[in-house]
C-alpha cells in the first residue's frame, strides 16, 4: 500500500511536469502567440513592445521563462497577462461553482444510470428495455452543450420556471443555489448516464446468473436483498473507474461549455475566457490543476477498486 502510494505520487509528478511543459510549449508555437504584442495593444510602437518584453521577461530563453513561470505558480504569485489578476485567486473564486456543479452532476448521474440500468436489466428484451436502450443511446450521443441549450430554452426561456444563468453560493441561498444548478447538472448528467446505464445493464445481466446469486437465494434472502446486496453491489464496481474519472474531469474545470452556457463563473468558464484571450498563465495553471485532479482521482479509483473487490491487489503502479 505504501509502495503503491509512493509509486503513484512519483508518476503523478512526472505527468504534471509533462503536462505543464507541453502546454507551455504549445503557446510558444502557435501563431499570434506572442503575449507582448497583445499586451501592447493595437497601435503600439516597437519601443513599447520591447519594454513590455523586458518587463515581463519574455526576452529570456524559453527554459528560463518556463522555470520562472513554475516558480510563480507554486508560490501563488502568478498573474494573468490580460488583466493582471492573480490566477490562483481567480481559480479559487471559481471553485465553489465548479465543485457544486461536479458533485451535483455526479449524484444525478448515479441516480439516473442506476435507475435506468436496473429497470433495463430487469425488463431485458421487453418493450421497456428497448425504449430505455434507445433513450440511453440518444442521451449518450447528444453532446452536453446541445442538451444544455435545449433545456435552457425550454425551462428557462419558454416556461420560465428555472433561472437561466448565474451561480448563487450554497451558504448565501441554498434554494437558489439548487435552482441555478439544476439545469447544468441535467445537461452534464444525461449524456454520461446513457453510457453508464448501458454498462450497468450489461453488468447486472452478467452477474444475475452468477452462482453466488443462486447461493444468496438459497440462503432464504428476500428478492430485494439478493438484488441490492449481491447483484447490484457487484455490478456497480465497473462503474467506479468511469465515474471517478468523470468526476475528476468536471472538478478540474472540464465542464467548459456548460459553465459558459449557464454563466456559472467556475473554473471551466475561466478556462474558456483565458483560451479566447490566449492568456498563458491561467491556461497553464488550469491545465495543471485539471491534470492534478485526474491523477489524484485515478489513484483514488484504484484504491477504491481494491476495497470494493478484494481480489484486486494494489501492486501495479
Amino acid at each position, binding site marked *: 500500500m505504501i509502495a503503491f502510494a509512493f509509486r503513484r505520487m512519483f508518476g503523478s509528478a512526472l505527468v504534471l511536469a509533462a503536462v505543464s511543459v507541453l502546454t507551455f510549449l504549445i503557446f510558444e508555437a502557435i501563431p499570434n502567440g506572442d503575449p507582448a504584442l497583445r499586451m501592447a495593444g493595437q497601435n503600439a510602437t516597437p519601443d513599447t513592445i520591447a519594454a513590455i518584453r523586458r518587463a515581463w521577461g519574455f526576452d529570456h530563453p524559453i527554459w528560463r521563462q518556463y522555470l520562472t513561470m513554475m516558480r510563480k505558480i507554486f508560490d501563488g504569485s502568478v498573474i494573468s497577462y490580460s488583466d493582471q489578476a492573480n490566477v490562483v485567486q481567480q481559480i479559487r473564486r471559481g471553485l465553489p461553482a465548479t465543485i457544486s456543479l461536479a458533485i451535483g452532476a455526479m449524484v444525478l448521474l448515479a441516480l439516473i444510470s442506476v435507475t435506468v440500468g436496473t429497470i433495463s436489466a430487469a425488463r431485458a428484451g421487453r418493450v421497456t428495455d428497448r425504449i430505455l436502450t434507445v433513450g440511453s443511446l440518444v442521451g449518450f450521443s447528444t453532446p452536453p452543450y446541445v442538451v444544455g441549450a435545449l433545456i435552457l430554452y425550454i425551462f428557462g426561456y419558454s416556461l420560465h420556471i428555472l433561472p437561466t444563468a448565474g451561480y448563487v453560493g450554497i451558504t448565501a441561498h441554498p434554494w437558489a443555489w439548487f435552482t441555478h444548478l439544476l439545469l447544468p447538472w441535467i445537461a452534464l448528467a444525461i449524456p454520461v448516464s446513457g453510457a453508464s446505464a448501458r454498462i450497468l445493464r450489461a453488468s447486472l445481466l452478467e452477474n444475475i446468473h452468477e*452462482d453466488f446469486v443462486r447461493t444468496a437465494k438459497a440462503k*432464504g*434472502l428476500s428478492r430485494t436483498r439478493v438484488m441490492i446486496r*449481491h447483484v447490484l453491489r*457487484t455490478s456497480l464496481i465497473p462503474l467506479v473507474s468511469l465515474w471517478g474519472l468523470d468526476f475528476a474531469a468536471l472538478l478540474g474545470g472540464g465542464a467548459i461549455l456548460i459553465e459558459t452556457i449557464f454563466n456559472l463563473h467556475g473554473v471551466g468558464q475561466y478556462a474558456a475566457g483565458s483560451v479566447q484571450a490566449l492568456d498563458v498563465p491561467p491556461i497553464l495553471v488550469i491545465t495543471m490543476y485539471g491534470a492534478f485532479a485526474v491523477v489524484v482521482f485515478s489513484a483514488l479509483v484504484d484504491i477504491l477498486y481494491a476495497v470494493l*473487490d*478484494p*481480489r484486486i491487489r494494489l501492486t501495479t503502479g
Partner: protein
Amino acid sequence: MSALLNVEDLRVAFVNEKDSYRAVDGLSFDVNPGEIVAMVGESGSGKSVTAMTILGLTRGPGVGISGRILFDGLDLVTAGEAVLQRLRGAEIAIVFQDPLAALNPVQRIGTQIIEQIRAHERISQKAARARAVECLERVGIPSAHERLSAYPHEFSGGMRQRVMIAMALSCSPRLLIADEPTTGLDVTVQAQILAELDDLRAEMGLGVLLVTHDLGVVADIADRVVVMYAGRAVERAPLDAVFDDPQHPYTWGLLGSIPRTDTPRLERLATIPGQPPLPSELPKGCTFAPRCPHRFARCAEAPLLESRLADADHSDRCWLSPEDKRVLRNTGTGIGLLGELAATQ
C-alpha cells in the same frame, strides 16, 4: 416413520419458443431424518435440477413443475414464494459444487454467514457473529474467529467447501442438499469433507440428499441410492444392494467406472459407451436402451420403476429378470441373445 422429504412423481419441464424438454420425468424418492440418500448419475441426468427444484430455485417463466415435493408434509411445488423463502437456508439448506463461484467474491465470509442467520432469526449482529464462529469451528476451520473477516479467495478449495457447509448448517436445517460437494477437490480433502458430512448427519439428525456423479463417494457414506438416467430414476435401493446386486445395466456401467483395488486390475477401466440422450431427443421405450449392450425387443416399451426382487426396497427400470441379470453380470457374454430368448420364452 414418515419421511422428512417425500418426492413423488416430480416432473420438471423447460419450455421455450422452439421446443420443450423434460429434465426430470416422474421421479420419486424419500429422505428420512438422519439419513443420507445419494442421487447418482451422469451430468444432464436431472440430479441438479431436482436439487434446485426442491428449493424452488428452478421456478420461472417457461418452467413447468408438477408432482409433489412434501417437506414435513408441506408441498413445496405449490408453496408460495414467501413460504419457500422462509424454508430456504433455515429448514432446507444447500451446498453447491464449486464454492469459489458459489460464495460472493467481494464479501467477507463472516458477512455472508451472518446475513443468512439474520435473514431467519431475530438475533443481534454480535450473537449471529458468535454463531458463525461456532459453525466454522464445527466444520473444522482453524482460528475461525479471525477467518470470519477473510474473503472466499483467501481459502483453499477444501476450506472453502467447509465454509459453504458451515453456512448451510448455520440455521440448523433439517434437510441438507449437497450438490456435488466434493467434485474438484483433492481425494484426501474429499474424504475429509464426506466424513464431516457423515458426522454432522449423526450429530444433528440431518437428512441429506447427496447429489453426485461419483459412486465412489456414495459407497462411503450413503444409506440409500437413487440412480438417475435421463431425468428418471432407473434404480432405487439401499446402498449395499446397489453394490451387491445391482439391477440396472446403467448401474453396472457406473460401478464398472470405479477403479477398484480389491479385484485384479483389468486392462482398462470399463466405460459406458455413448452419450446420455439429449433431453429434447429422448428415445422411446427404455431411455437407456440405445447405450445398453443387453437390450432386446421388449426394451422398445418403457419399463416402470418397480421392485422385481424379493426386497421391496429395491426397484429398477429394466425388463431383464433378476436371474438373467445375475448370469449376465457373472459371465458378461452372449448378452443380446439371452435377452432375446428371455423375451420369447
